[in-house]
């Protein structure tokens, strides 16, 4: 790695004692000796193991659940179903006033995605829990399912989630989050060329080497200690408190040493049910996702569809950009309404465009609920935007890097969401890339600056 101190030297004070120094990591000695304690290294005497009974169907009504055979299985201590969960219908962003509650801890009357948790089996060993889970008999009436976002948005599509009442998240702005800046129609009318393209991604797994999980121990005083690899301690504690209808003072969360997260451990899925199980059995409980659960059950990065329509002039200026983004939330909200909204704030990318129209939708389908991942709401949008930029440059016969210089935002430029640009550095990154990659651009671009004269 090369630290290029010559850029922005005028606005930076160097020569600090500790900041900027390559100090060794205080946690690494624990890592290389195998002494670092992750949550699963808390191996407690008498610990029970929790395994989930999961839906084999994408969308089905549950007629009945029979746990009697499972309960008789040797080693089984308890089987939990929806009726055991004090506040079974929840949504995690309720903590920042983003509702409605739309998801069940354990399915109640219906499953909306293949893999949804239906019943929790607690047993002396993982093997007994797994075997008993196979003995829980669930009578399903299979319902039509919808997997495609466009299909889901059509009238008459199967309704994925009754708590929403339609297959999209309803923002205060309506069926999508909107950004309106300038006059896109006028921009398109004035443009020399118009290019409309559609981009698509598929769900992506975080794949941390340590799977999601927790170990819960009753403290004996009506309090419960939850050793967890959550990415957000109080967010998880407070949501568990709501779901369990248990005062937060009864909950003690210990974590902070996590085997990779990448956004995959902020969903509050394992902790509430494991705490409930510890409470109802009086025993320590371990609930750790298998690798298969991590791959197909834990929330992935959402699939997204992005439609970009641009108006561009022969001289390289983009004069209008319209973006319609669709985020496939799967069956439940989790963090997706937030992510789709973050996309609206991110478009039209780091470029100054006078006429912008953004609509971002959060769409429900009968698939594994998606949620946060590294670059949430932005990563796929950047893929779409930057491929589109390449296409636009080629359309007008311009070098793709020079084309970006022409449109790059600089200090003081008004963004589509009506904030003036501050602290821009896109131009300098591109100048340095031009040098490093031996991709020459015209001198006038190398002479540009993110600073504005007089700014």
């Amino acid at each position, binding site marked *: 790695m090369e630290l290029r101190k010559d850029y922005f030297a005028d606005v930076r004070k160097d020569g600090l*004692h500790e900041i*900027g120094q390559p100090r060794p990591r205080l946690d690494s000695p624990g890592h290389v000796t195998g002494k670092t304690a992750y949550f699963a290294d808390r191996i407690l005497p008498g610990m029970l193991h929790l395994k989930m009974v999961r839906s084999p169907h994408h969308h089905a009504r549950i007629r009945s659940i029979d746990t009697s055979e499972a309960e008789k299985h040797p080693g089984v201590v308890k089987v939990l179903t929806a009726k055991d969960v004090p506040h079974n219908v929840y949504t995690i962003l309720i903590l920042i006033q983003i509702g409605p509650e739309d998801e069940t801890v354990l399915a109640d009357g219906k499953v909306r995605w293949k893999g949804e948790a239906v019943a929790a089996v607690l047993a002396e060993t993982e093997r007994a829990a797994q075997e008993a889970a196979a003995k829980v008999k669930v009578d399903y009436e299979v319902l039509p399912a919808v997997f495609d976002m466009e299909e889901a948005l059509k009238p008459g599509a199967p309704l994925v989630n009754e708590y929403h009442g339609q297959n999209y998240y309803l923002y205060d702005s309506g069926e999508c989050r909107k950004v309106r800046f300038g006059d896109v129609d006028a921009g398109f009318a004035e443009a020399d060329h118009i290019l409309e393209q559609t981009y698509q991604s598929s769900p992506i797994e975080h794949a941390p080497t340590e799977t999601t999980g927790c170990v819960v121990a009753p403290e004996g005083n009506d309090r419960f200690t939850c050793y967890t690899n959550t990415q957000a301690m109080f967010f998880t504690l407070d949501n568990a408190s709501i779901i369990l209808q248990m005062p937060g003072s009864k909950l003690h969360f210990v974590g902070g*040493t*996590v085997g990779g997260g990448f956004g995959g451990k902020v969903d509050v899925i394992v902790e509430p049910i494991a705490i409930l199980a510890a409470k109802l059995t009086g025993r320590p409980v371990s609930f750790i996702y298998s690798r298969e659960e991590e791959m197909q059950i834990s929330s992935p990065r959402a699939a997204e569809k992005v439609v970009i329509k641009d108006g561009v002039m022969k001289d390289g200026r983009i004069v209008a950009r319209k973006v319609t983004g669709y985020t496939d939330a799967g069956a439940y909200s989790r963090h997706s309404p937030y992510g789709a909204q973050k996309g609206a704030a991110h478009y039209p990318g780091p470029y100054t465009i006078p006429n912008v129209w953004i609509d971002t939708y959060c769409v429900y389908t009968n698939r594994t609920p998606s949620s946060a991942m*590294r670059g949430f709401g*932005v990563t796929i949008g950047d893929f779409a935007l930057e491929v589109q930029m*390449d296409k636009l440059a080629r359309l007008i016969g311009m070098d793709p890097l020079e084309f970006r210089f022409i449109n790059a935002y600089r200090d003081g430029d008004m963004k589509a969401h009506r904030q003036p640009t501050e602290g821009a550095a896109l131009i300098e990154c591109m100048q340095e890339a031009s040098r490093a990659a031996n991709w020459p651009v015209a001198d006038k671009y190398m002479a540009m600056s993110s600073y504005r004269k007089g700014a």
Partner: protein
Amino acid sequence: MAIRRGRGVAAINYPTGMNLGGDPTQALVHSTPTGNFMVTLSSVDLGQGMKQIMAQICAETIGVPTDRVIIDTADTDTGPHCMGTFASRGTHRAGNAVIQAAKEARQVMLEVAAEELEVNASDLETDGQGNILVKGAPQKSISIFDVALSAHFKRGRSISGRGMFLIPRSYPEKETGAMKPSTCYAHACTVAEVEVDDETGEVTVLSVKNVFEIGRALNPKMVEQQLVGGSWMGISHALYETTEPYYPNRDHGGTDFNQYLMPGPGDLAETEIIVLERPSADGPFGAKGPGEMCANPQIPAVANAVFDAVGVRIDTLPITPERILRALKAQAAG
């Protein structure tokens, strides 16, 4: 049939912290009797190195070496609230909270030192090595070790501080979307060079040259870790990863590391990392959040390089050999 070479560029920016703000983090700092400093948080280290960075931030602010700072984090019985580790917010939000708490503790420390040295606290400075000196008269000094002992056993002062950082929440205007998503943005530009085998559709990323602007590299080696790993993930996203290879069809989803593909140690691109620092106005020592954006520019850069190599656009991720071959076939069919 041939191996064809191409290159592509992409440039991006990325917001620091939770979109629209409203995501607080608190920190507490106190001195032990011998002048070591405990930082108490509930922030989570996912491997990015939050604990180490908070120690360096506290050390710089107090004026002691980093190894005199202890991080106690993520026990909800002791640590004050942190919204969590996500949205590139950890360094920025928790770092600011630690600075505020450490400044308050430092002020008490300087007041106690001032009493011991019989000078004004405002005339004192720290040397970064664990000593407090009189400005302009460095021979007149006292160690932080002795100041902490005095505070505890003689003067009855708690060398401690509280920190809280919150960017007030912004609410988007319904019709126009006017809003304040973030207070600072990191930037990047990547040039990727690829080879595409037009017979098999296989893509080899030969090199990625990444330029990242991250405000301030608080610990350059740790920044490098994050950026190298992120660049790898970006390439992985571009070419390999999905849990639903035939989305929206739900079949064929991988369930383990044999089916869910990522580049292994034998599939690495030559990776160059260049870092620029334009300090942000409200970042801890100017730092922005580099953890997420570092995995973004490689994806479109690789996509654009594939087009440059073989003249077909793959607008659906991941850019698999199958998709490339189908596109080449369609192109050949005219």
